[in-house]
């Protein structure tokens, strides 16, 4: 009964979203106040209905209600409670419901925080947001109903993919969806602005916090996914340029660009057309990503159960929203006029360069991702696009970005003198150069990757420090320190995020340059060398987990005769799903991880063992978390909060323009 009620609230939510779309949009067109006023309660009601629906589905998973087809396919009584709950979104139907729930959440947040936005504008924003809800709710209800009942319920379920039974992955999709779906708000803001035919500084202020919120969730989601791949898949890599990874990376790149260009709109009222385009594209790439992941049009390890019917439907949704918005864009873009002018050397120019680099790199990733499709059509046969393509074509953009970032972040608006900025930035440059030379001297037999990566990474980190210091003005050290503590949080957010980018750059470059790998057969009691370490395989034992069986090896890691760590890599077998997984054992270190994977027992005796030293691996994710934390700092800034609510101050800005 409860399950049917969940289905019923889902249908109700669809009806409410239909109302939320049609009534306020028509009301805004005609200027009917009460019609427009429907938008906000409708958005909140939609959130309530979908929360009920989602909670019921979660309840069905928690109590293992095997009359529901989805629970049978994705759960099992023996599964730990945490994974019963996360199993809700570990599948196509449940994750689409989560998608819709988050969409409704953002709609409701805009409704609650946007009380003071102009009436027609908020009605249009919520109307557009509602129309996305209509599309995805009908997709969910008509092609992927999560509440489907079975006539003859089985005694037990068939389990969840064992690889997904992991805390890192459990929280990777919700963050990712928060990011993907959060970008729907920027899309709605952009389309509403095009409908109104007006983009001004106030629009830039409204759209920025939502972009920031979506972007920081995407950052955390991508970092969690990459971290999960590193320790769970047992391949030792952190990024594979898989189509599904790219699907989350493209919106990240575009929203990072949008984040920066919205600042230009807000402060200088230029770059409006471009910013609107980015706002459309950011969500557009989310939609395309959803299509790629769920249609099976590209082969990927992550792919959900593929279904061509769903694929066509999703392509239709993506085509309608992106295509519609882009047509509206080409009709209206000509009416948006820039109000400011700026010199070639200025922060505006630096931010434009930032945008070009980010947008083009996103496009490169896009082309690489869909190349198998294009090439098949154009040449009838294809080449595979592997990591070598992405490494070669994507890296130069990131290097360019890292080179200009510290300078650009210090440059003043409007008109700047490079000389003055250089004076502020030269200590950072000097420190970076010294560090790079140090790295070069300790690893001179190796490639240039380590010193160049070090130079770029430390240039970014020290550059953000220089940026902060430059904000304190002149005077005595004490006065400058006092001013530093009084800087707005957004300034700290900017510096922390930029430094985070530097930390990630350092991690990626040093890991790739300095990793050590040993793959061999080890007998029990045997010791082998891994870089400076000695690894001994002491014993192998059988293990019995709650829903798996397996084997684990006791590995002793020593350095110069001193114990560094005892590691216990495992090979697990999940009988319900019939699949094996490897559990790498990792000793985390600030400067290097030791990473050991147990392979198969060999016929000739002994075990296949893979061991790595992964230098600076954790820096990659720490950097990503810093980037996201910088976003949180900026969001907590009073000035940004006010713009999210768009209270009196923004009204004043709107009046000025």
């Amino acid at each position, binding site marked *: 009964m409860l399950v049917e009620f969940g289905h019923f609230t889902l249908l109700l939510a669809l009806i409410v979203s239909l109302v939320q779309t049609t009534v306020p949009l028509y009301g805004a067109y005609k200027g009917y106040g009460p019609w427009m006023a429907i938008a906000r309660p409708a958005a909140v009601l939609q959130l309530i209905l979908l929360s009920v629906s989602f909670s019921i589905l979660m309840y069905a998973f928690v109590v293992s209600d095997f009359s529901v087809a989805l629970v049978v396919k994705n759960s099992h009584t023996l599964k730990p409670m945490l994974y019963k709950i996360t199993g809700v979104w570990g599948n196509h139907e449940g994750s689409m419901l989560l998608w819709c729930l988050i969409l409704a959440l953002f709609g409701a947040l805009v409704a609650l925080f946007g009380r003071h936005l102009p009436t027609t504008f908020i009605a249009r924003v919520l109307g557009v947001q509602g129309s996305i809800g209509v599309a995805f709710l009908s997709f969910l209800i008509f092609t992927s109903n999560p509440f489907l009942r079975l006539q003859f319920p089985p005694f037990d379920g068939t389990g969840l993919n064992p690889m997904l039974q992991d805390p890192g992955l459990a929280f990777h999709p919700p963050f990712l969806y928060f990011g993907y779906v959060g970008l729907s708000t920027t899309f709605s803001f952009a389309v509403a602005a095009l409908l109104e035919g007006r983009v001004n500084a106030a629009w830039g202020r409204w759209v920025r916090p939502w972009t920031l919120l979506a972007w920081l969730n995407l950052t955390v989601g991508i970092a969690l996914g990459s971290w999960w791949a590193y320790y769970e898949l047992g*391949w030792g890599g952190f990024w*594979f340029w*898989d189509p599904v990874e790219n699907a989350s990376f493209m919106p990240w790149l575009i929203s990072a660009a949008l984040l920066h260009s919205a600042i230009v709109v807000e402060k200088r009222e230029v770059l409006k*057309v471009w910013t609107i*385009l980015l706002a*459309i*594209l950011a969500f*557009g790439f989310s939609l*395309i990503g959803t*299509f790629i992941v769920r*249609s*099976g*049009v590209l*082969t*990927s*390890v992550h792919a959900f159960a*593929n279904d*061509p019917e769903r*694929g*066509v439907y999703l*392509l239709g949704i*993506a*085509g309608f929203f*992106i*295509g519609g918005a*882009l*047509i509206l*864009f*080409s*009709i209206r*873009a*000509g*009416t948006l006029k820039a109000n400011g002018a700026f010199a070639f050397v200025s922060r505006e120019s630096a931010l434009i360069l930032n945008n070009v680099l980010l947008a083009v790199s996103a496009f490169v990733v896009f082309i690489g991702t*869909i190349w*198998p*499709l*294009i090439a*098949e*059509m154009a040449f009838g*046969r*294809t*080449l*595979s*696009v*592997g*990591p070598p393509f992405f490494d070669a074509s994507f890296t130069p953009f990131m290097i360019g970005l890292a080179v200009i970032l510290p300078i650009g972040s210090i440059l003043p608006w409007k008109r700047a003198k490079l000389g003055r900025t250089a004076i502020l930035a030269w200590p950072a440059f000097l420190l970076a150069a010294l560090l790079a030379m140090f790295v070069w001297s300790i690893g001179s037999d190796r490639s240039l990757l380590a010193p160049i990566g070090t130079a770029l990474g430390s240039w970014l980190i020290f550059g953000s420090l220089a940026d902060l210091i430059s904000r304190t003005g002149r005077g005595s050290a004490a006065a400058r320190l006092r001013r530093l503590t009084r800087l707005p949080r957004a300034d700290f957010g900017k510096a922390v995020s930029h430094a985070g980018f530097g930390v990630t750059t350092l991690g990626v470059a040093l890991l790739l340059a300095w990793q050590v*790998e040993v*793959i*061999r*057969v080890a007998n029990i009691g045997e010791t082998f060398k891994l870089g400076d370490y000695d690894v001994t395989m002491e014993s192998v034992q059988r293990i019995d987990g709650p829903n798996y069986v397996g084997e684990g090896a006791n590995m002793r890691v020593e350095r110069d005769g001193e114990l560094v760590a005892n590691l216990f890599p495992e090979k697990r077998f999940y009988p319900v799903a*019939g*699949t*094996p997984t490897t559990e790498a054992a990792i000793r985390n270190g600030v400067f290097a991880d030791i990473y050991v*994977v147990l*392979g*198969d027992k060999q016929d000739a005796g002994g075990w*296949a063992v*893979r061991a790595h030293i992964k230098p600076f691996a954790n820096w990659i994710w720490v950097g990503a978390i810093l980037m996201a934390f910088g976003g949180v700092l900026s969001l907590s800034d009073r000035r940004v909060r006010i713009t999210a609510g768009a209270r009196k101050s923004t009204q004043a800005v709107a009046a000025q323009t």
Partner: protein
Amino acid sequence: MARRQIPWLTLMPPIIFAGFVGIFFSGMLKDDQGSLPSAFIGRQAPALELVALGNKPAPSSEDLSAQTIKIVNFWASWCAPCRVEHPILMDLAAEGIPIIGINYKDTPENALEFLAELGDPYTAIGADEAGRNGFSWGVYGIPETFIVNGSGEIIYRFAGPVTQAVLDTKMRKYLDDAATVD
């Protein structure tokens, strides 16, 4: 009226986007995901020119025309989906079906490490470092798997990882059919 004019530059995004939708749509219309129509089906398998990998002999064109059904599998150590299909290949090898492995655009060290770690399902294995064999076989992207019958003709092709479902619903009938014919 100047307002009505649409700058050509702003027309580009929707036009480019329409092109991509077309690409995606025709990609969706491929009736059967993975089993791409191949001009080679029913034809003699292209010749193989491979370098030996490890201490197994390199497969030759004679191996392709041997009197049994056999699987030709293109793989690489850098290819993530290859790891997904690997256990299925091991099962097929255990059934006694000969599997010719073609290591595509890979380095011998990495390839051997891959096999040492996960096991080696291949009866013969050759390295195609330049990807020339992949080209002559019309390989779409790896992993890709072909079934070749006792007279050396390609009878089935699958692009993407061979999962249990793919094996059961698509490949099994070719393996069985050919087995009864032989």
